[in-house]
């Protein structure tokens, strides 16, 4: 765990790499859903340094990319990061390899939701908030964070 404030600490213990895990098809599924090539990522970290929400995340966007390359599906879909991403496309426009990282985030969110993990339900919003937030916020949150 990092003790510096403002740096997201690495959440998971050292990852386990076996041929079965890496080849189980998680990376292919992300590639397929997002239309991106996960293998293009060379870990420059531009996405993490530009992300306005990196401080709120438990694993950084660049780490999500690396974990996905290595097929570590559990670490990703159980992370907070995928639900904190606000889809602002900052990472997408800054990626030197042209990867649409926001699309990757959408893809892993969809995989998590397919496995029955919803982040935000209709019962979690207070009636006062529901009465005053502009509709794009309400539609957006349920489209992105719930099935």
């Amino acid at each position, binding site marked *: 765990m990092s003790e510096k404030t403002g740096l997201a600490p690495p959440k998971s213990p050292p990852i386990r790499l076996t041929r079965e895990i890496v080849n189980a098809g998680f990376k292919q599924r992300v590639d397929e859903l997002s239309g991106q090539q996960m293998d293009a990522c060379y870990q420059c970290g531009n996405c993490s340094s530009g992300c306005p929400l990196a401080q709120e995340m438990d694993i950084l966007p660049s780490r999500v990319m690396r974990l996905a390359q290595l097929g570590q599906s559990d670490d990703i879909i159980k992370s907070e990061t995928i639900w904190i991403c606000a889809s602002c496309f900052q990472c997408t426009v800054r990626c030197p390899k042209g990867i649409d990282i926001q699309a990757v985030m959408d893809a892993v969110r969809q995989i998590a939701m397919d496995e029955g993990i919803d982040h935000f339900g209709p019962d979690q919003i207070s009636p006062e908030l529901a009465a005053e937030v*502009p509709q794009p916020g309400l539609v957006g949150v349920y489209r992105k964070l719930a099935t």
Partner: protein
Amino acid sequence: MAKIAYYPGCALNERSSHLDRSARDATVRLGFELDELDTWTCCGAVPPVSEERVMNLIAPSRILKDVRDSGRDILITICDFCYNTLKRTNYSIKSDKITRKRVNAFLADDTPERDYLEKDDSLWEDYAGEVKVIHLMEYLRDELGYNKITENLSRSLKGLKIAPYYGCVMLRPQNEIQLDDPENPTIIEDFITSLEAQPVKYPYRTECCGSYLSVSSPDASTRLCYRILTSARNNGADAIVVSCPLCFYNLDSRQKAISEAYSDFKPVPILYFTQLLSVALGVEFSRQGFEKHYVDVTPVLDKIGIITGKEDEE
């Protein structure tokens, strides 16, 4: 008066009606009318990224096809979310053959056959992305020209320092939106200059305000908005100008939570660009919906000698 097809979207129809009304007032004074579509539905707010979510493309495609069928080729939107969704949907219909066929299969009146994807049938090419989706500010810049605004000013905003706030979906993703440079945009700055006010430079103008996290993780959004507002204030801004209803909500209403969390915070008034425009074009204050703002905007207008209450009495 030229009539241009206009898609207001759900927020402008109700909760952000002051954005809608100030836009209509301002455009009439600039010589064109926003002609609201006869029928429209929600666009879906966020464009689907994953290929499997074809259903999310149908609502925006139907809106676009209706515009085409009514014989028009330009559609104006103001809400950044609608702009992003409609423009990106149109882009994928235009550039991706598979998406085009899938979407048209849903839009067609006849029931499609199972193997429609393999057939080369013009029915599935019916709507091919002919409509051009443009933001009202884009229309002012490219079609009308900002100099036309300056010519029509009824009161100059000289002396005001306005910070532009772009937010996220107005500019990004750049390859599909192509409104302006995503890292160093100037479209709102030029707009502010055309009103003879002074644009303020500050580093957070394209940084996200938290978007829909305002609903699911309000504290995260509070921290983001604090950074944006404080930065604008420290660089001398009298007010921030936005175009998106959700940015407006986050930056304006969230100042209540920010004041509670940060003792050094000083409120910053938030204005829609259309409000600033219609004030400069001479529309009455009573029509601006300033009472819907959490942070009082009167000090901004007082600063350049516009006393809000008085004018309406005259």
